[in-house]
């Protein structure tokens, strides 16, 4: 097994395997706790692990008033029987017991680290989302919980310091790239320490983005700006957001996953040549029920809501908490093709973005996209807006595969021959392999062709605000 860089900590206790305090395990909670220990041990190299436990415990109790119920149920800190300093004393007594092995233990394989070692009981009081010891049929053979090594339990004690509050629950980000997981924990721990320094910390650090999707993409923005290797090159991480509460009778967890291909697409969109188009598109889609009718002003970068006597201005820090259907759809693997089409009817939007989306996320062949682009150029070849409008209307009106095929016959194949072109605009191979292969979805071809046609028109500067090319019920938020 690859050796890790040794933990920069006073190694006072011989019973602890210090490497396993920080070695990634795959368990999101233990890993976040481990990264927090690693960060704090660098910050406070004079402290040993028990002193670090003492340090965070005092923060949980004295600064946060013991409000870590979203992590632990009836722990030494959250149970009401213990007041004030006793919460700290009992917590330290428990961890001293783990270290000195006076707590009840057995030999076995840790459920998190996989090592054969002394194991201690893990339940809702000392680990996250592992089930109550009271309900004994939740585990094999009526066991009261899971069996964990002392290193895993110590790591989990640091989890509240490495997580953020989001919508009243707790958010934890984990990635297939260790640096990204560490970045999330580092930001969170630094935010906690900063707020504690200012005397403002009264609980788990709060995310300034109010929705899971916004939080993930906001974090990717940070990563792209701070860690150069994620902005370019071949590193393609995936991200998982754990959104949970271990509180009371309703422990709940939701997982949100951003796969590597979605990361690649988003990263490409944020490159200099695409970011203006992409950001305008995404920002214009922020929506909030209390600000119905608000419009994004691309010049000021703010939302404006015109009321009877005045205009309310919404700053980025506020509207970035609103729902963003584009982020939601990317995260939930839902198609944003129709959103791009609606947007394209009025706004220039680099077709390369559509092309990358269709290839990387949807899995469309690049030859199909190239053919659609060629067809679009052919359909707006005359720079005659009236003809273009008629073709768009006909294409918009295609309600099934046969109507789309008829459109292509009437508007592309036939005119191409009439104009005396030597090569067919659509060959039999194009038709069979790329436009209408088995399993293809005709409406997708129609929509991408429409988007390409609109972009051709934007490039030729043929579209203007007074043109009515938008079908009913396709309003956009600008």
């Amino acid at each position, binding site marked *: 097994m690859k050796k890790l860089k040794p933990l920069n900590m006073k190694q006072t206790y011989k019973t602890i395997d210090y490497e396993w305090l920080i070695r990634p395990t795959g*368990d999101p909670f233990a890993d976040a706790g481990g990264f927090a220990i690693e960060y704090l041990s660098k910050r406070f190299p004079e402290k040993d692990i028990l002193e670090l436990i003492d340090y965070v415990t005092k923060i949980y109790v004295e600064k946060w008033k013991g409000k870590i119920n979203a992590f632990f149920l009836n722990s030494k800190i959250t149970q009401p029987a213990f007041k004030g300093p006793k919460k700290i004393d009992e917590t330290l007594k428990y961890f001293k017991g783990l270290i000195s092995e006076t707590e009840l233990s057995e030999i076995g*394989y*840790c459920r998190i*680290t996989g090592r054969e070692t002394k194991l201690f009981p893990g339940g809702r009081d000392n680990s996250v989302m592992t089930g109550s010891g009271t309900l*004994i049929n939740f585990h094999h*053979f009526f066991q009261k919980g899971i069996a964990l090594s002392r290193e895993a339990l110590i790591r989990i004690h640091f989890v509240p310091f490495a997580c953020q509050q989001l919508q009243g629950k707790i958010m934890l980000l984990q990635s297939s790239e260790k640096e990204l997981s560490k970045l999330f924990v580092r930001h969170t721990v630094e935010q906690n320490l900063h707020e504690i320094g200012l005397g403002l910390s009264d609980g788990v650090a709060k995310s300034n983005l109010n929705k899971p999707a916004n939080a993930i993409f906001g974090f990717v923005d940070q990563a792209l700006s701070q860690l150069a290797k994620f902005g370019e090159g071949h590193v393609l991480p*995936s991200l998982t957001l754990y959104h949970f509460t271990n509180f009371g009778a309703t422990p709940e*967890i939701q997982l949100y996953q951003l796969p590597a291909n979605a990361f690649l697409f988003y990263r490409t969109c944020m490159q200099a040549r695409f970011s203006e188009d992409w950001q305008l598109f995404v920002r214009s889609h922020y929506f909030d029920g209390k600000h119905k009718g608000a419009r994004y002003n691309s010049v000021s970068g703010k939302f404006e809501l015109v009321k009877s006597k005045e205009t309310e201005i919404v700053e980025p820090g506020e509207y970035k908490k609103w729902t963003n259907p584009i982020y939601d759809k990317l995260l939930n693997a839902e198609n944003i093709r129709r959103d791009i089409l609606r947007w394209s009817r009025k706004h220039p939007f680099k077709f390369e973005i559509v092309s990358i989306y269709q290839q990387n996320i949807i899995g469309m062949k690049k030859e199909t996209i190239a053919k659609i682009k060629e067809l679009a150029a052919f359909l707006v070849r005359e720079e005659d807006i009236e003809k273009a409008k008629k073709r768009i209307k006909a294409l918009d009106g295609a309600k099934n595969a046969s109507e789309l095929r008829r459109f292509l016959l009437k508007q592309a194949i036939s005119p191409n021959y009439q104009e005396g072109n030597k090569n067919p605009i659509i060959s039999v191979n194009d038709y069979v392999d790329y436009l209408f292969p088995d399993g293809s979805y005709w409406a997708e071809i129609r929509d991408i062709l429409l988007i390409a046609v609109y972009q051709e028109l934007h490039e030729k500067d043929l579209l203007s605000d007074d043109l009515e090319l938008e079908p009913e019920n396709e309003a956009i938020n600008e």
Partner: protein
Amino acid sequence: MKAFRIKISSWTSSFRYPNLISGFQPTLEVPPVSTVMGLINAASGRYWENREITLGYYFSFKIKTVDLETIYQIKANDKNYPEATVKPNVIQREFLYDCKLFLYLTNEDLIAAFRQPAYQLLLGRSGDLAGIESIEKVELNEVNNARFAGQVVPFNGNYLAGQIQALPKYFSNTIPRRNLGTEPYSVISCYNPVQSPLTGYRPDLEEFDSDIFLHKFEV
């Protein structure tokens, strides 16, 4: 390499996160190695131990969705025995629909078990009854820079994208069961293929677009 491909299907599957208990029970999008080993044991009607296992698999599903499920909660009494009364509760369980498992094995003893399984086969929980569609001989051709989907790959040393989870390889034949060989895995969904620098195996009988990672370990 010569191997056997066992194609198994089920209407539904749900593979729990080993350490998560919650009012919302999410499912992994690929079964862990331990689940597949459980399937082999169920087919064999015995617990395999003290031998070297080589297995690979590809798992696909059509949709992932959520259903309500009644669970029964049992409390312990003062003597730590289960109480006679059980309390029902309703939770949300995420499950996968229209599932296929393509299991690749090289050991003929194990294949024989699938021709006449000893116990019912389950792809997930007790309600996720599975059936064998076919057993065929295949050639697995070694390929560099393999592309993986629909399987789990050990994370350490490979570092593939996917959801990272601590998963066991196997469970002991003891009471209570003990998890064996727990380590981090990349859980790579059939919908999010990953291009890797690893060596994989490409089956000649393809019904999916992925190479196969072969897990080799002793049980």
